[in-house]
């Protein structure tokens, strides 16, 4: 086993549902979650999940020399996103997209995907990736 099983389990809500904290004082979203608001210093925060928020692409990078375990997903596309409702910044993989289809400002939505797996017999790591909203990228014939 090369991957840490306890770590994957401990972070499953961050991976599956984009677990964050919402400050009850200033209303801002702390992502990754924090027990002290990094914007106003308040310690009154509640659980918040960014799993349903669409986002827009601010910037991205295309990684050709994929790290070990990611060879089958080459090239990896990692984007910086801003969610539409709470304006939270997230760095996440883009999926279901070709490098030449990415545009600044395009709207993407969170989907659960296989991010990596621990060789043939180990755990499969599932987490949120983002893909263009359904209907925004059409057929090859377009």
């Amino acid at each position, binding site marked *: 086993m090369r991957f840490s099983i306890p770590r994957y389990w401990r972070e499953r809500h961050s991976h599956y549902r984009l677990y964050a904290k919402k400050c009850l004082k200033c209303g801002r979203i702390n992502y990754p979650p924090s027990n002290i608001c990094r914007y106003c210093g308040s310690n009154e925060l509640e659980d918040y999940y960014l799993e349903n928020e669409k986002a827009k692409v601010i910037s991205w990078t295309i990684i050709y020399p994929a790290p070990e375990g990611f060879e*089958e997903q080459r090239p990896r596309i990692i984007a910086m996103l801003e969610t539409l409702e709470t304006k939270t910044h997230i760095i996440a993989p883009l*999926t*279901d997209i070709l490098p030449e289809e990415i545009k600044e400002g395009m709207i993407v939505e969170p989907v*659960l*995907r*296989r991010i990596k797996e621990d060789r043939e017999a180990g755990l499969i790591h*599932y987490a949120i990736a983002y893909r263009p909203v359904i*209907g925004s990228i059409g*057929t090859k014939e377009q």
Partner: protein
Amino acid sequence: MRPEPSVGIIGWGSYIPRWRLSLSEIARLWGFAPETPRGLNVVEKAVAGRDEDAVTMGWEAARNALLRAGIDPKEIGAVWFGTESKPYAVKPSATIIAEALGITPDTMATDLEFACRAGSEALRISIGAVASGLVKYALVIGSDTAQANPGDVLEFTASSAATALITGPAREAAAVFEASYTYVTDTPDFWRRAHQPYPLHGEGFTGEPAYFHHIINAVKGLLEQTGLRVSDFDYAVFHQPNGKFPLAVAKRLGFPKEKVLPGLVTPYIGNSYNSSALIGLSRVLDIAKPGQRILLAPFGSGAGSDAYSIVVTDKIIEKQDKAPKVDDYINRKYMIDYATYAKFRGIITRIR
């Protein structure tokens, strides 16, 4: 006890991957007659990407069903996942989806296996569970990244897609179950032994003694039980291993082609196994009008078939536009070649 009338479909949703492989590409590679795809009445098949599997596809179908249901995920008391391509041989897929949708921990969850009709068996179980009051809502998922031995005739149609249904009290439902009936026997038409990567099928068994015998008897059982006639149904949705069998079984039962075509998805995406009939139902629910009656008849090898009579209510209108429709996914497509398909589906052997 006839539990069906108190239970209905609260939400439905499907998922189809973006990638498509032309059947003529398969015929070219493996030296089949060029007209083979036309004989199957299937043009392309949907292929799950390298980061997709039955769990991720089932998750998205379930999310769409939740959007249409408009309920708190915590109110779901059962997550039943029907598949024959679960990512883990041992470790439930249902709990991954339940956790990722915020349904855990106060719920039942398990994976079911019965070739292509495990999801349909889950649907019948859910009717009993909701009617008895054991759960308020149940999430039923049929999802498969269907496997086929490369070069086998099954490879033409084995595809990837998922469909989810949330069942619950009839008074909240977009469509209610009027009746259901199941017909099973021990039939050696299709199987996969433990540790084998691909299924085998008994030549000559897949059609007449398996598909046609079980579906026809399930539908006849339903009609006898209810007194309904073929003409009482506005739509007929059958398991669709190819584009021809559903039309042939409809003809033998007396359903005209136009009642079958709205629920016939396989010509565009191939046979998605546990989602095969259910995605046909999903597509019909996307367009159905209040008062219409739908016949649903999934089939699974081994073998068995279920027949359901489903009546649409006026609540369907407000739900239809709350999530992407089956046709939105059918139209989202990008053609890939056989090499890409082989990489996506893990057919190329690598040391990892």
